[in-house]
């Protein structure tokens, strides 16, 4: 794991979350969800605090964090981009949309731009198959995408 510093304040918040769920190891996934909602990601120091609070090994926490695609150990961008790679979007050309996002943002899937603005991920089915191919930026859903739209969409977020 990489060297990531987390503030004492953040670690105290993590302890509070654990205590809210009675330090119950059975609630590990719920605790991880709430922690990620609060801090945005789950770096090593945070996982160690959770392990200590729940009385389980850090390896166990790490095993769970890395098992589920929803959990991230790196901070997401201010505007997280997710391209749907569900089957319906795939047959309507989402692979080309993803390629174009990679090219325009200059990052690979799972990475964040150096300025911390955009991160790029894939997801499996937003459920808006009528709008395929679909991508989401933050909470906003963009449908019926064509690779040639991407540059303009990304530009909407340049301040």
């Amino acid at each position, binding site marked *: 794991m990489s060297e990531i510093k987390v503030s004492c304040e953040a670690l105290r918040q993590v302890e509070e979350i654990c205590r809210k769920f009675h330090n119950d190891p059975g609630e590990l996934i719920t605790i991880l969800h709430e922690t990620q909602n609060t801090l945005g990601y789950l770096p090593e120091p945070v996982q160690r605090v959770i392990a200590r609070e729940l009385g389980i090994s850090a390896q166990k926490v790490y095993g769970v964090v890395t098992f589920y695609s929803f959990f991230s150990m790196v901070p997401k961008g201010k505007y997280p981009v997710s391209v749907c790679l569900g089957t319906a979007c795939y047959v309507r050309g989402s692979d080309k949309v993803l390629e174009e996002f990679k090219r325009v943002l200059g990052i690979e899937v799972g990475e964040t731009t150096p300025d911390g603005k955009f991160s790029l991920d894939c997801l499996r089915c937003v459920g808006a198959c009528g709008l395929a191919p679909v991508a989401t930026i933050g909470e906003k859903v963009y*449908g019926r995408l064509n*690779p040639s739209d991407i540059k303009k969409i990304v530009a909407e977020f340049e301040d």
Partner: protein
Amino acid sequence: MKINSADALESIRREAALALAVREESNLAVSEQSCGLEKGTPHMQILCCGGTGCKASESAKIVENFRSSLAAHGIADKVEVLVPGCFGFCEKGPIVKIIPDNTFYTSVHPEDVEEIVTSHIIGGNRVERLLYLDPGSGKHISDSKHMNFYRKQLRIALRNCGFIDPENILEYIARDGYKALSDSLNRDSLDVLADIKASGLRGRGGAGFPTGVKWEIARKFDAPHKYVVCNADEGDPGAFMDRSIMEGDPNSVIEAMMICGYCINANHGLIYIRAEYPLAVHRLQVAISQAREYGLLGDHILGTDFCFDIEIRYGAGAFVCGEETALIHSMEGKRGEPTLKPPFPAEAGYFGYPTNVNNVETLANVPVILTKGPQWFSSIGTEKSKGTKVFALAGKINNVGLIEVPMGTTLREIIYDIGGGVKGGKKFKAVQTGGPSGGCLTEKHLDIPIDYESLAAAGSMMGSGGMIVMDEDDCMVSVAKFFLEFTVGESCGKCTPCRIGNKRMLEILTRITEGRGKMEDIDTLENLAKVIKDTALCGLGQTSPNPVLSTIANFRDEYEEHVKDHICRARKCKALLTYSIDPVLCKGCSACARGCPAEAIAGEVRKPFVINPEKCIRCGMCLSRCKFGAIRVI
């Protein structure tokens, strides 16, 4: 206010039904005439689809505009704006329905709202341009009942979706909600169980195990705690029926879980739902808290000795958690890895206690089976598959949407009558059912009546109900590779056949799509697939080779073309393509060169341009930009 007896529930139902009458009646009598306040209609309702698909197209803004427009016209007291769940016709979303004349507006934009209010709501004249245009007759259709998309459907699991306000438990009660529970609590639980068995209901999550039998097994095990789990971890990429049911009719799931609890003597309910479904989570939370408020969840339900409560557990994005043992481990806060069965969850599930797991759509059928009777349900469908099935129809089809049809309906009826045929007049090639566990079916399978057995016999499976239509532009080797990439990414890694076998298969498929395949690769794929099918630990691993096996079985010639002739007839496999510009057709407009991300196109304006094959990344951007058909792809 607590409802503490069956009679109290009935009186609440009667009262709530009055409020819903305007919608119920409008469904009985088709109003050829449109209604409006100036025509003397005293009360109207505007239903704006609140499903995820329509919300993505600004349906929330539409609702907001309606509310402010009605207020500005001073008619907010006469016209109600409601947000029901998904209407199903996602292709034409956002949908707005006007009651009582049942006008079904399609592809509504927030800026259309004012015209609907002034022209229709006030003046009583429909806004023609927003009505559905029937491609067959070229005429506008105002009532969804007359649209081909709805005509062949039979909505049982989706009965309330797009009809009631999912955040108002009274509207669910008005539609006989919690009546099945109330009746059941006054009967012997064995009789209720017998009804579920007699109905022939089978699991809608994939494998099709008889629900009544599952409950019967779970009932046999005695323990201090027993659990009813609703599997709402819809992982099939391209299927969204469970989400729509939870968004549109969450109370039906809650009621069914309670009935299951009564039948198997369990008092705890858990809903395992994907965290990626925020709206469904919200609607379930609202429904659970309203049910508690009315005393329909909690202790001594409806004045009986039966106690039941429900908690929500969140998934975190792992396809394998759709498998019930993996799901249970995930709920316990562990990695979602499956374990060998037996012991089945019915014997040792959540924290070792007897647990019954059912999928959302299965549960949504339960209350209506009990109110209408098992004979009614078993009269629908085929010999071995009773009732209906919800499908998420998507891909290269005109009418994308969520549909529900009786078992035994043919693929042809679904694709051509309901789905309106292949998009853009292209040629139908295949339909993929069952998601990553299913297979691709072809023209020759179109007339098979669909049920669990017939789909399995054809080399696919029912799965959760994803149905993706593909046309001549889809490469079947790439489709198989797409699913395998999914499986490899989602394999939990516990058993070797799935972890390594699928990876090897993916390597071979990649080789073939890049023109480096050998003829024996196709046989190796088949052999590997069979080994994985026989030896993988869980249901997901065992079915993971299906997309490969079915595409080889039905499209072997395409595999051979890739290998022998280095040709991808659908022009999908980039490595096998060469882009060039026809000097005769090229007008030298430079649109291609300006759009080329690799700067691989050069030339002088008004003279033919040329593509540099060394620089070309085969992205197809030039093809989509050229207005003269001058780009050649070989």
